[in-house]
């Protein structure tokens, strides 16, 4: 602390300082002074909280949308269900609108127009990200379901299983393995996109870094620090996904 004050005084006075002294002062004021690491920690907690909430919402939305859309697309010719057709058109609109507009615009609209009276910016952010992620996840899962050969469904049905059971025990387990890498990609994008909620006042990791940078007029250490934290989080995420993928592949005869 005393060392920091002394060296900082030297630096502001424009006296010559060693590289080590500069590093110490800039690092100290970016992370340690006034317990600033707490701001980053709170930011990380919010970032993870938003990611998990959005992930759960996105997967639920994605599965529902994908199953309904696949069911519609794989109907036998001449046996079209009009209700399914209507719901399919609705879901298609949802996917088109969400994928066709930038994330930041969606956040602004949700934060300042639709939920104009809400003060829980973090929840609004998580909801927006979840709805956004749902559209992408839906297309990934739909791709997986469509990729399973039609013969699998026919075999299941001819053995006397109904549609739901065939989906649950035959098609979905095969689809999950195929889509896991793409899904992991989407989760990583989601984690990094949480940084956008700072535009509507959500206090996540980037918000903390920006506040500290604005305090010290020194952008390098807070931003690089935040980047390293994001990188570590994504690496942790990738590692967990890798374990999951390996477990699923355990039964493969390769």
């Amino acid at each position, binding site marked *: 602390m005393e060392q920091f004050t002394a060296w900082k005084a030297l*630096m*502001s006075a424009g006296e010559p300082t060693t590289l080590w002294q500069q590093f110490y002062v800039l690092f100290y004021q970016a992370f340690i002074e006034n317990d600033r690491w707490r*701001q980053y920690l709170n930011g990380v907690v919010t970032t993870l909280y938003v990611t998990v909430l959005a992930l759960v919402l996105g997967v639920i939305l994605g599965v529902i949308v994908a199953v309904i859309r696949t069911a519609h697309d794989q109907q036998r010719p001449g046996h079209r269900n009009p209700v399914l057709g209507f719901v399919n058109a609705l879901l298609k609109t949802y996917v088109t609108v969400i994928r066709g507009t930038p994330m930041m615009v969606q956040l602004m609209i949700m934060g*300042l127009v639709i939920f*104009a*009276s*809400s*003060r829980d*910016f973090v929840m609004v952010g998580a909801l927006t990200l979840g709805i956004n992620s749902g559209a992408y996840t839906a297309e990934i899962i739909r791709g997986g379901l469509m990729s399973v050969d039609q013969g699998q469904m026919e075999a299941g049905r001819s053995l006397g299983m109904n549609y739901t059971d065939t989906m649950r025990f035959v098609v979905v387990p095969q689809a999950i393995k195929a889509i896991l890498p793409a899904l992991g990609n989407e989760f990583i994008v989601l984690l990094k996109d949480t940084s956008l909620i700072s*535009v509507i*006042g959500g206090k996540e990791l980037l*918000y903390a870094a*920006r*506040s500290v*940078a*604005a*305090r*010290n*007029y*020194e*952008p390098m250490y807070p931003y690089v620090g935040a980047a390293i934290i994001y990188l570590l989080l994504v690496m942790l995420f990738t590692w967990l996904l890798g374990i999951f993928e390996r477990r699923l592949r355990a039964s493969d005869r390769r």
Partner: protein
Amino acid sequence: MKKILAMVLALAMLLSVAAASAELTTLEAGKFVYATSPDFPPFESTDDEGTVIGIEPDILAIICENLGLTAEPYAIDFDSALVAPGAGKADAVVSGVTVKEERKATLEFTIPYVTIVQGVVFKSGADITMDNLGDKIIGVQSGTTGQIEATDHFGEDHVSAYDKYSLAFQALQNGQIDCIMVDDMVGAAYVKQIPGLEMISTGYDPENFAFGFAKGNTALVDAFNAELQKLIDDGTIEQIILKWNE
């Protein structure tokens, strides 16, 4: 008569040569690029064509003309504008920058040309006084002295920082924040534009505005200081401020 005209012309040429040979180094020769966050009326905002207008662009236009430079705005968020000169992305930051001791470590300031205090803007009729601000959510623009004062007095949990003051004012109208801490001249400009708002003064220490240059370009700062002093002395700056506050 002709002789006098010739002499005046000669003098003018001599002066212009003298001005040009003063060798003011800027990032791009002949241009003065200034970083600014143009959502800070009356100091700077944008008109319908997207041109940056306001008190500071007007002052800069006069100074730059006298120095033989062309002023060119570099519009960016305020917290990024503050570090732009140090990063070599602009010659100076001209964005209603308050002279603060901590900022002097990275910026070289001109002489101040205007003084303001922090104000608090809220919806008319809301129960806001300087005593109960500690229970409220205060909106600010990221990186401003408003953010620093608000967090210093009321803590991080009571402050919500936005990219732009225009966004903060939107949130205030939505009721997502209770009030906004902002320089009083700027607050007054927003109060005039948006019906149903009012402003009180914080009574904090007055703040001086100046232009912030990158460290080391003393010749440019000296030239600006001389020009600024002239404009302060002959009342031009006062006139410009009055014009924009009408």
